[in-house]
């Protein structure tokens, strides 16, 4: 029997290149297998659903989770209450707004930009430490430790604790993945435990920050007294966990996918070395071409809604395949071409609507900094394995390792 399209997309065998499957997906505006989620892969439909107030992010609005390969990972029995990622307005808006106060404009317009020198210094340090250039795992050497160090500094998590929550974050992120071979009950328990431990760790940290606040985000969140009042401790915990995990699992892939793409397009890599400012449009194109978040599987309908003549019933599970929308030829000319000079590049790589990526300004700056520096300093870099080994995860897609070699490291 041939596998359903959705199973093929989730199948690890297709992880390295899911794009032909997405092309297939776009042929049906609303893809639906009996009992499964409703899957959307075309640009305009995804974008309008992301702005559609009849679409909810709150799992409790799902009519049934039967047949949904991601259902086990929903936060129903989690140790922490849902983060704002899994909430609807008004709760979503309130929590996101409070979280934003110490992070971005209007109250903290310089937080991200002010980290520029620090980001640069962290990347420089990591590249300096590469050592043997015959075989570098770029993930281990740069693209993983970089965003992790950054999110730790931003939140005020001691660097020495990083190893501990690395494993929790990994487990939680893995639970987002619909691995068909894993035992769902076992997976749920492992994720639950990881959340629990992460929660306890963060609770201790927050307690400490309340007593001795620093100028990190966690301190500001813990002591905030804005017009919305203060977050409850539980809200603060899930918010902190969200930032920590998102900070771990997405930028890593953005940088890794970025380097992989550049190595496959040496002309662009050369250009980037000569003009580092190319990093800005290049990262935008990367977010279109190889987005770290491939699909948003956590939406449901609050009413029967019609998409392209198909009625999606109330309470259905809805998957929006951002990476497929990003390659929709109805929206982007030559969508399979990596073109950093592309104009009007309104990709879906960071989502859209009220849940559009909270950390976007930081993620962009991190990727721009890392890629420009790597391009400048690695001498004659080349891929050792193409495709490289990928992570299991189909939602947060990226190489687990990126083995490369180069002739040396420029000063």
């Amino acid at each position, binding site marked *: 029997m041939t596998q359903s399209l959705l199973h093929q997309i989730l199948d690890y065998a297709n992880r390295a290149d899911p794009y032909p499957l997405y092309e297939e997906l776009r042929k049906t505006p609303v893809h639906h297998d009996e009992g499964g989620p409703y899957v959307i892969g075309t640009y305009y439909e995804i*974008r309008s659903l992301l*702005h559609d*107030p*009849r679409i909810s992010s*709150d799992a409790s609005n799902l009519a049934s989770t039967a047949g949904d390969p991601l259902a086990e990972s929903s936060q129903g029995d989690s140790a922490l209450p849902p983060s704002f990622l899994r909430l609807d*307005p*008004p709760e979503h808006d309130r929590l996101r707004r409070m979280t934003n106060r110490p992070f971005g404009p209007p109250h903290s317009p310089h937080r991200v930009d002010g980290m520029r020198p620090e980001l640069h210094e962290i990347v420089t340090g990591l590249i300096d430490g590469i050592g043997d250039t015959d075989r570098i795992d770029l993930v281990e050497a740069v693209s993983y430790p970089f965003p992790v160090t950054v999110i730790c500094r931003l939140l005020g998590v001691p660097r020495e604790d990083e190893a501990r929550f690395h494993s929790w974050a990994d487990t939680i992120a893995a639970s987002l993945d619909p691995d068909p071979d894993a035992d769902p009950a076992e997976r749920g328990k492992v994720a639950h435990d990881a959340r629990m431990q992460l929660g306890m760790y963060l609770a201790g940290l927050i307690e400490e920050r309340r007593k001795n606040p620093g100028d990190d985000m966690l301190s500001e969140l813990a002591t905030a007294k804005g017009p919305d009042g203060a977050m409850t401790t539980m809200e603060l915990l899930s918010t902190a966990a969200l930032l920590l995990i998102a900070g771990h699992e997405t930028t890593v892939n953005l940088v890794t996918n970025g380097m992989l793409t550049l190595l496959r397009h040496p002309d662009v890599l050369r250009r980037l070395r000569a003009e580092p400012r190319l990093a800005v449009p290049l990262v935008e194109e990367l977010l279109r071409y190889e987005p770290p978040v491939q699909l948003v599987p956590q939406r449901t309908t*609050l*009413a029967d809604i019609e998409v392209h003549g198909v009625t999606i019933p109330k309470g259905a599970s809805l998957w929006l395949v951002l990476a497929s929308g990003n390659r929709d030829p109805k929206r982007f000319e030559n969508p399979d071409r990596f073109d950093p000079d592309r104009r009007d590049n309104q990709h879906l790589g960071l989502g859209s609507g009220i849940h559009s990526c909270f950390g976007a300004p930081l993620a962009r700056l991190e990727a721009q900094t890392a890629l420009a520096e790597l391009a400048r300093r690695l001498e004659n870099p080349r891929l050792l394995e193409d495709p490289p080994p990928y992570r299991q995860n189909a939602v947060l897609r990226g190489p687990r390792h990126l083995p490369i070699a180069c002739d040396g490291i420029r000063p």
Partner: protein
Amino acid sequence: MNGDGSLEWLRREGRIVVVGASLAGLRAAETLREKGFAGSLTLIGDEPHAPYDRPPLSKQVLLGMTTADRTALPRRRDVDATWRLGVPATGLDMAARRVRLADGDEVPYDRLLIATGVRARPWPHEREAELDGVFVLRTRDDCAALARRLAEGPKRVFVIGAGFTGSEIASACRERGLPVTVAERGASPLVGALGGVVGAVAADLQQEHGVDLRCGVMVTALEGDATGRVRAAHLSDGATVETDVVVVSLGATRNTEWLAGSGLGAGPRGIACDAGCRAFDIRGIVTDDIYVAGDVARSPHPLFGYQFLSLEHWGNAVCQAEIAAHNMLSASADRLPHMWVPAFWSSQFGVNIKSVGVPSMGTEIVVSQGSLDSHRFVGVYGYQGRVIGAVSFDHARWLPFYQELIETTAPFPPPFHMVDRRPDGHRPLDADFPDPSVPTHGPTVTLSGYSPADRRMRFTPAR
């Protein structure tokens, strides 16, 4: 010469003149070059400045975050034009295809784009308007003068008119800690553009932020002291407010006087044009060589019953300019209609306000998401059983959805469940717009009547 041959010639060596060197003028010029226009391009503007952006003038600049001279519009590309700045156009000879300038020059054209916008309506009593301390806010120079005065720390700022600009000025002043009184003839701020239901929220916002808001009153006189400085405003309810700065925000007047007698269909309501931005002459015949864009234009819109709309919206100026530029260089079959769905934003008292469609055409409103009390909501306007407009207060990311409802003439009130839809959000209320015969301050959309071509057509949004 006609047909493609003459178009080819126009593109290669024709002369295009743009009157009004601001947002619409600049974007049109850039689009002409982008589309391959290689002929001569002249931009005529009565202000001495290169094109600059106006929205920041009532926001960032008054807040002291930037200065009026740092609002230059970013350039999309080089336009390689002859700039005639600081010289108003004073007349148009349609037969000879020439624009007359105040300095006596005449500039010939093969295609003309008129983008002269609007100007602030001044305080009607001339002597009072000339008092030191009385301002309007439309241009960079207006703004620089007002910003200077605000920086001196006046005792009180008195704003006449609580439309968008007046409200933004009041907001900026409060944020700087200046005492502000706002006088509004209507029942609440923004009532002309958004109606009384939403106006009440705007009133709340103003009062919460310490504005001394006086609605339902008219300013009867401004009083100066012996040195010619303004010192008080007198109101129709008998009150007197002592003040040393007055900002007159009574809406705008269209810059069309220079076209009087030219034979072009231009008047106090703007310049009528077709959906392709081609101007009408006074006989209602469409011209083929004169185009209009931006605040000064009034054009029929299929989504709104072919009513002629005049929009004082930034996005409209950009889009209409691009369409006009495209059509100037195109054969009739390739011309595009300007079917931009009206959209407008404002920011005041820490709230981001956005609208789509034409709220002021609505008769009813439902609060479809959020709540009026929390000052975070989407209000949907209904007109004859369909959705005609929507406004959001701090809820802008949902607006594309409502735009789609407007574009597809969806039924009003929207019948479905939505996130954050409260129980009382299912009940339509009277949107409570003021009687149109009572003048209000600067509506940003002016409905200026039906065209003879009023017939139904299915509107399919561009995609």
